[in-house]
């Protein structure tokens, strides 16, 4: 697939933003500036960035408990996202949602979710709404390998296939749900086969390769948009950090981690673009520096932002 400079820079920039954002959150957690937990997306950048890059601004996504990457890729404002994770008034959800509930409905991001599988139903419903309102939008529904063991996954895929809904289910298979490997949690290891029961097209893609994700999801999104054909794309990928800050990662080996880190989606894509003459080295280093500055700015903004006022406790409950 031909990639021009503008696209290459956009994909690279978003992946760098996500990586640096997550590294920064880890640092803020360690310094107790960020409280609570955060599930970090580092390592998985190519999935969110590749999949969302084929969407129109008015298309919808639903996200997961590991939602920072999706939010950034769906045109999220770094400052408002960072402030939200700290629980500040200037956060994208006024500090009420936090990391687990990052959302920006105005940008088509129907939100992260604290419940594994919790957004698969609403993604399917958004696709129904699109079809009923005849708006030609598409929904991309992100979830993890672990979520494919929830009942709502099967219930929703059945409805989408039955009613021909414009939704692409993107399973981020990072091979573990918390500490439990796919092998120990799922009777079938090839998760794409879970769509067979509904005669739904499905495929597996290299989730460490942003262009491969872009190509596969791009095709599926067009089928959804033009033919109301739902599908399942399984993107094989890896989460670099532990599930949470305190996770000693005893359930996986350091060799396995090394294997995946050698396939890091960011440097691999950058060097490929340089090799192909799309980008030059200097552009990559400049971009990295530019992203570093914007993450620093966002961090400062979030830290300096005020807390919500006490009255906010009772606002926003009912429309």
């Amino acid at each position, binding site marked *: 697939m031909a990639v021009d400079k503008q696209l290459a820079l956009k994909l690279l920039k978003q992946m760098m933003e996500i990586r640096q954002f997550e590294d920064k959150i880890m640092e803020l957690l360690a310094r107790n500036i960020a409280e609570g*937990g955060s599930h970090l997306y580092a390592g998985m950048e190519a999935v969110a960035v590749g999949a969302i890059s084929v969407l129109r601004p008015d298309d919808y996504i639903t996200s997961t408990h590991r939602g920072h990457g999706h939010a950034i890729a769906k045109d999220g404002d770094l400052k408002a996202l960072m402030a939200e994770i700290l629980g500040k008034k200037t956060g994208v959800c006024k*500090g009420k949602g*936090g990391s*687990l*509930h990052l959302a920006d409905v105005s940008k088509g991001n129907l939100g992260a979710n604290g419940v594994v599988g919790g957004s698969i139903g609403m993604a399917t419903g958004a696709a129904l709404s699109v079809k009923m309102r005849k708006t030609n939008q598409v929904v991309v529904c992100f979830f993890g390998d672990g979520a494919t063991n929830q009942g709502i996954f099967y219930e929703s895929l059945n409805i989408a296939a039955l009613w021909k809904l414009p939704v692409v289910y993107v399973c981020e298979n990072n091979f573990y749900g918390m500490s*439990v490997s796919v092998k*120990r949690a799922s009777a079938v290891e090839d998760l794409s086969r879970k769509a067979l029961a509904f005669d739904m097209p499905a495929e597996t893609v290299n989730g460490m390769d942003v262009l491969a994700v872009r190509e596969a999801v791009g095709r599926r999104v067009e089928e959804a948009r033009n033919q109301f054909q739902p599908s399942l794309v399984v993107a094989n990928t890896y989460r670099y950090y532990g599930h949470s800050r305190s996770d000693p990662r005893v*359930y996986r080996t350091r060799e396995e981690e090394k294997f995946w880190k050698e396939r890091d989606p960011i440097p691999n894509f950058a060097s490929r673009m340089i090799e192909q003459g799309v980008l030059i080295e200097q552009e990559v280093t400049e971009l990295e520096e530019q992203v570093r500055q914007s993450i620093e700015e966002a961090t400062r903004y979030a830290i300096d932002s005020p807390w919500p006022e006490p009255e906010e*406790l*009772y606002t926003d409950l009912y429309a």
Partner: protein
Amino acid sequence: MREISYRQALNEALNEELVRDQTVFIAGEDVAIYGGAYGVTADLWKKYGDERVKDTPISESAIVGVGLGAALTGMRPVVEIMYIDFIPLALEQINNQAAKIRYMFGGKCTVPLTIRTEGGAGRTLGAHHSQSLESWLIHIPGLKVVMPATPYDAKGLLKSSIRDNNPVVFIEHKMLYNSKGPVPEEEYLIPIGQADIKRQGRDVTVITYSRMVLFSLQAAATLEKEGVSVEVVDLRTLLPMDIDTIVASVRKTHRVLIVEEDCKTGGTGAEIGMLIMEHAFDELDAPVKRLAGADVPMPKSPVLEKLAIPDPERICQAIREVLQ
């Protein structure tokens, strides 16, 4: 007596029951290799293996359903639902199946099933990881609901829950796991359905449970300096509720504050207050007062989260109001 943490007390209870009864087994998300999200099942998998300590898929409804089926047919499962916020995914199995099946079948079967879970706010995890949903569960006849506040109670009550021939939902509190307290080396049980007076007092009774027991004791210590004598009743079990202990305390102090972390509307405190009306109205010198969680989803922001649940200072304030 030695002091151990709430977490370790629970771990010991599980270990001892696994040793004692070969039909006991543990199943839940991340309970085996990881040792539980909050470390309660640590090292049990190393000792007992997959056969008796099972990691499950993320399938809450089936976790309870499978536990129920095993319980009905000769096993004594202890299943874990990682957060009480995910109990709703399994609520059909708990409410329609586990809690009712013995009654529906004319008493011809038993369900020795323990469902461990944890709840409560305090870690700024937001609306899906901070709830207190116990009042939903006490609305289910056929279930028992246990909510210990101290390591001692946690251990004795978990052992009783496992040995009970009825489905028990055993609700821990995420902010208590590191709290320490005396726990004897030798075996003991604490009966389900018995409240405990955690502090004797004359002027006012605080009725509470789980983490709010600790906050209420702090408030009682503060008020003692002002010459107010506060009795703190720790319910320990919410269903069945120990009305006798509640009434005895009301007879003594004639004034009641209920402190609960769950949302006020339709909450556990409403049930406690109404029981007092039914059983001890004539004893009251002042209206029963409730201090409860705010009627909102738990906000993430640390400043809002603190406001959403009672704290020792507001408990003191509420006690002063009851005394006026």
